């Protein structure tokens, strides 16, 4: 448990950095995460000027371009409030890679370091800062959790995700084989090496389905785009009208489970 959670110091205000993927492709997940935070009694501020953390260029070997985009984000969070990011890999970028990215720019490096300390991945914030206990109002349901690699290895998000799901009284969390293995997304990797990436997502979807879980949840929309995209493609190939592996961001799942008269 973090110092704040122990001492019961709950921040009254937080910033929300949605990430470009959530803003454009999974807006519902962003809205659900914000709603959940607000229901926990926190004022959520969404800086209008936000765009992207810069990770796509950074991991593709274009650090100069990443730096330009990252520099824009550095200025968005003037107050000393936590910055909540609903994606483990983008949170990891801002927390761990911004300081390196600006290593040769002392002023920005200092800003990046100050920001880094305030970055929280969404589930990490719920568990380790708020000590949030979900009250499960849904029926019996089995889900499987996928954690993105950088979220797992840089941020320990698999633990907080598991904890939150474990706290839901009527939810069983299934265990897939090769749980810690990458889904094969990797940003531009999926485009540059489609054969290998395709084999990886194929195996990942098989493992997830083999658990018999009703749905997959994840705290990373990049992985969801890949996993759900392949599962839907397979459904099309095999002529299924209903998705064989539905999935969503963990924020959406948690919100629905803790709302009155909730379904699954």
């Amino acid at each position, binding site marked *: 448990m973090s110092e704040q959670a122990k001492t019961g110091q709950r921040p009254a205000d937080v910033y929300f950095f*949605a990430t*470009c993927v*959530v*803003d*454009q*492709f*999974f*807006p*519902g997940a*962003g*809205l659900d995460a*914000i709603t959940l935070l607000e229901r926990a009694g926190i004022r959520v501020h*969404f800086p*209008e000027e936000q*765009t*992207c953390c810069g990770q*796509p*260029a950074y*991991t*593709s*070997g*274009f*650090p*100069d*371009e*990443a730096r*330009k*985009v990252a*520099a*824009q984000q550095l200025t968005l969070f003037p107050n000393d409030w936590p910055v909540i990011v609903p994606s483990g890999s983008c949170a990891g970028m801002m927390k761990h890679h911004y300081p390196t990215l600006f290593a040769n720019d002392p002023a920005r490096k200092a800003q990046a370091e100050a920001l880094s300390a305030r970055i929280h991945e969404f589930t990490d914030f719920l568990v380790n800062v708020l000590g949030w206990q979900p009250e499960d109002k849904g029926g019996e349901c089995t889900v499987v959790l996928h954690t993105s*690699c*950088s979220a797992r*290895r*840089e941020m320990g998000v698999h633990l907080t995700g598991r904890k939150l799901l474990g706290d839901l009284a009527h939810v069983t969390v299934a265990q897939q084989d090769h749980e*810690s*293995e*990458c889904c*094969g*997304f*990797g*940003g*531009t*990797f*999926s*485009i*540059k*090496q*489609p*054969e*290998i*990436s*395709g*084999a*990886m*997502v194929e195996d990942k979807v098989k493992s997830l389905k083999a658990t018999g879980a009703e749905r997959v949840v994840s705290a990373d929309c990049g992985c969801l*785009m890949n996993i759900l*995209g*392949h599962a*839907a*493609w397979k459904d099309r190939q095999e002529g299924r009208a209903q998705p064989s592996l539905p999935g969503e961001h963990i924020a959406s799942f948690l919100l629905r489970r803790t709302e009155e008269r909730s379904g699954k």
Partner: protein
Amino acid sequence: MNAQPIHFKPSEGFRGRAKAVVDNPFLRQSFRGAMDFLMTKRAAQFPDAEELDSLRTLGEHIRQYNLGKLPDLLVQLEENLARNGIHVHWAETPDEANAIILGICQKHSAKLMVKGKSMVSEEIELNHAAEAAGIGALESDMGEYIVQLAGEKPSHIIMPAIHKTKEEIATLFHEKVPGVDYTDNVDALIQIGRRVLRQKFLEADIGLSGVNFAVAETGTLCLVENEGNGRMCTTAPPVHVAITGIEKIVEKLEHVPPLLSLLTRSATGQNISTYFNMISGPRKPHEKDGPQEVHLVLLDNGRSQAYADDQLRKTLQCIRCGACMNHCPVYTRIGGHAYGTTYPGPIGKIISPHMLGLEATATMATASSLCGACGEVCPVRIPIPELLMRLREESFSAPHENPAMRGQGAGYKPWVTAIWRGWAAVYRSPSLYRLATWLGSRFAWLMPSNQGPWTTVRVPLKPAPKRLRDMLKERG
């Protein structure tokens, strides 16, 4: 810096080779099984996460400490080896290394060289050079022996024949070893190999080996192995030639035990290897066995290029345990041969560009999702994903003066750089970003259903009809 001519570009045809394995369910299954086995064995060796953590930190520190003093240590090593009666040779390129080794062979009119497992000898393609010079080179490590019989190259740095099933090995022995009937009994196969090799150890004029750690202060060469063939190679023939890269050096004997323990536990999940040899010179007058002459060839082959750059230098921390490949989801899908380099897997991706130049290896660094499994298990904490990003940058940036790497800019394509510049121009400007994403959400229906490589196994990507910022505004 070496200027080895490029005769083979592993980058070329990589995707095709990878696809061939990915499309073969049998190979997919067999690599998966083998890697699962190795991962389980390693995990059993490190039940205590904290102990592992501190051991890895120790391993990292030892390697960095020694690399920090590398030039001095090399001088010290040479002096102490010479004092122990071991001849030291320096080779900048594979060709030079081969010339040195063949020179030693010729001086002794050698006809047969028997080899212990040595990836550096694979790196310089010694077998090839020896055969061209009319000298037989026989692999004596069981895995290497199998690979040599099959006319192939190792597909893994620790388990050279991991891509072969026992049935394939049975057929190979039956066809290639005179007088052997087909058997797929593993023990029987090992006995067949041993019988053949035992005779050769006695006939050989030269024994060749690699080196796992060269100790500068004592002038000792340490060799880790499981089959005893390494000990045979380094003691039975009259001349022992060891070859290693210049980075495999430690200053003190006390640096060896922690690295050895990390090596065997990470590599094969063994507490300790069956054999651990410490070679400190040729046979002394009163001794009954051991070689009469011992040589060490120290190979650069691009290592000094990695050394010259603080970040790239971390590549040289490697102790060649192979754990990064065992845990790599890409290696698990495509196996070692697809890489086309002597060293496959994550370590291969970060070390090969120094050996072969980025011209030959530019696209290899893209064959990673940067999942970080390699960096997480590396016993000496090499930040492999970080190095892969660096290699991408070196390869895709426009060629410039005084590059840190040979072949810098080899993957440079002006239009790709232009795309990223355009991307940055949009994403650094809130108003352009808002415009672009608004257009995206409005005209999502215009998104093509064929989105190139993405849609080969996925449904097309489509922006949501409303962005999060729109939803927040509507909500008020």
